[in-house]
Structures are given as structure tokens and as C-alpha cells.
């Protein structure tokens, strides 16, 4: 406990784990595709947070882990963009199918 970083690192580690299990719970229980996408995007920062906490163990913080997280951020946003387009396309398909059924 003599190390000044000990307290806040533990706080963020706990928050990261809570984020991951919260996202997992959302992924498993929610049906709405948008909510599931948000759930994935909450698990992601949870994992990144663990990596940044691990980077902070040394002074200056570990640049390799930071670089990996920068890469991860860009990959995450491109995957999210693609997933959102797929959700929009599938919901539009579903709604046009319904309207065809309603008006024979």
C-alpha cells in the first residue's frame, strides 16, 4: 500500500471488470441488435482499460500496450460502422416485408 498508484489502479481494474461483465450480461439478455452492438462496445473499453492499467505499472507507462490500444480503437470503430450498416439494412428489409404482408 506504500505505492501511491496502488489505490487508483485497483479502482480502474475493478471498473474494467465490472464493464466487461455488464457488457456480457447485455449481450446475453438483450434482443435489440443496437443494444447488442453497444454491449460489444462496452466490453471493448473494459478490455482496453485493463491493458492501460497494466501499462501504468511502470514509469513512464508502457508504450507497447498504448500502441496496441490505439490500433484496437480504430479496428473497433470500423467494425461498429459495418455492424450498424448491416443492422440498418436488415431492419429496412424486415419493415418492407411486413408492409407487403399487410397489404395483399
Amino acid at each position, binding site marked *: 500500500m506504500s505505492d501511491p498508484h496502488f489505490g487508483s489502479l485497483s479502482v480502474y481494474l475493478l471498473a474494467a471488470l465490472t464493464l466487461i461483465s455488464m457488457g456480457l450480461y447485455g449481450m446475453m439478455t*438483450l434482443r*435489440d441488435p443496437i443494444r447488442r452492438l453497444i454491449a460489444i462496445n462496452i466490453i471493448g473499453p473494459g478490455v482496453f*482499460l485493463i491493458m492501460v492499467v497494466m501499462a501504468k505499472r511502470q514509469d513512464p507507462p508502457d508504450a507497447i500496450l498504448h500502441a496496441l490500444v490505439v490500433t484496437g480503437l480504430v479496428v473497433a470503430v470500423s467494425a461498429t460502422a459495418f455492424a450498424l450498416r448491416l443492422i440498418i439494412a436488415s431492419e429496412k428489409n424486415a419493415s418492407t416485408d411486413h408492409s407487403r404482408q399487410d397489404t395483399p
Partner: protein
Amino acid sequence: MTPELLIDLILALLLLIIAWSALFAPSRRDAMAMFIAFGVIVALIWARLGAPDLALAEAAIGAGLTGVLFLNAARQLPQAGRTTIRHKSTIKAAIFVFVSISLFILLLSGPTGEQMVTPVDNNRLADAMPDAGVIYPVTAVLLNFRAWDTLLELLVLILALSGVRQLYTSAHISEPAQANTWPLLTGWTQVLAPMLVIIGGFLLWNGSKAPGGAFQAGALIASAAVTLRIVGLLPPFRWSFWLTRMLVSAGALLFLTVAVSTFIFADGWLNYPVSLSARIIIAIEIFATISIAVTLALLIIGDHEDLHT
């Protein structure tokens, strides 16, 4: 309790509350707004944890561009009723409880838990830095020591964009008519966009010796393009125009050329000769910035007019 710890506790608590409401707020729009706020808090936490590169990237990508993505989707999605209906399944509950409890036990207690917060002494990166060609360690890792990651990441961006394009070639998706833009927004964008481009250029130039670099710069320039496109000041990018395709692939192409030429003329794949590494890194960074900016902008606001061939 020290004041620093209090800030950390508040940020962590805010993060969790906002994450919960992004998942379980009754309406989709509230959930999306909460998710944007989540990105802002994450950026603050990166700044607290001594990761300025991540804070910059998260503020531009996580809070800015992802926000535009979700708002754009909200505009196009049909209004849904209750979207928080939940599955009830005993097996899933059991899996969830098992996975979370083992995560917590593994990472918070025992030898691993101890390791996660114990200071370590690792000088391997510092020892390698003199040969890197740049002074700033994160840029050195991204573009020299682990250049493979960055090359593959540029390819992932192109892959995502081609995935999006498939949706526009297989079937015509009708676009909602462009809403009338608010005059104040147009005026504000005319001031904001040039500033974003200048700050992006500064981050790119600064990346060799201080926080910044191709990703942050690319994200900022992409957001400038996105705002200009939203208010209708920028013409469509048009995939059929050769320059657009060139700009999207320029970063990856230059990177691959460097990889092949280092394989043939130097010590192996992406193993730069020490005397040339600074120039190679800067050239790759400039082209990568342009490619990242155009690809991100197309991924976020590209519509039928931009992407069909």
C-alpha cells in the same frame, strides 16, 4: 483518502452508471446519447492514466465519430417500441455468472491480481529507442517495432469499407431525404472544419516527438470531412472516381511497398535500415493519415451516392 483517489472513484462510478444506462435505457435514442457520453468519460480516464495518445484518439474516434455513426443510424432506423426486452434462460445465466466470477477472482486476487498492480521494471523498449528513427515511443512502436499491426489495421479499414460497399451493390437501400440544415450549423462548420484540419496536421507533424500521430490526425480530418458533408458543403466522394480509390488504398499500398522492399533490399519484412527509418516512418504516416481520414469518412457518412459503382 487522497484527493486523486476521489477523482478516480468518481470517474469510475460515472463510467459504470453511464454504461448501464447505455445498455438499459428505455428508448434507443437515449441509449445512443448515453453511449456518446460514455466515450467522453473513457477519454478522461485515459488522460488520468497517463495515456495522452489514447485520450486524443478516444475523444476524436470514440466520442466524436462513433457519436455521428449512431446518430446517423438513429435517423435511418424505423421507430422501435420497447427495445430492452430480455431473454430469460437458465443456461445463459449460469454461463454469465461463471464467466464473470472467474474473471473477478482471476484478475483481482491471487498471484495474477498481485501482478496487475505491482510496479514492474521493463527497459527493453527504452534500450531499442535510439534505433527507432523517432523520439516518441508510442509512434516508434506503431510504425517501427510493431509495424505489422499498423499495416494489418489499415487493411482492416479497407475490408470494413468493402463490406459496407457490398450493401450498396447488392440491393438499393433507399436513403431518407437530406434534412434542411440549420444555418447556424453551416456557419459554424465553415469555421470548425479548417481548424480541425490544421489541428490534424499539427498532430501528424508532432507525432514523432510528442503525443499524436497518424490515427489521431486521420480521425480529426475525417471528422472535418464528416461535418462538411453533413451540411452539404462537400460534394460526394464517389467511389467510381479513381482518386477516391487511390486515397483509400494509398496508405496500405505504400506500407506494402516498404515491406516488400525491406524484404528484398534490407534485413527482412518491415525491418527498416536505421539510417532511413525516420524518413520511411514520416512518409508512411503522411499517407496513412490520408487513407485513414478518407476511409473513416466514407465508413461513417458514405451513402448510396458515394459508394455505388
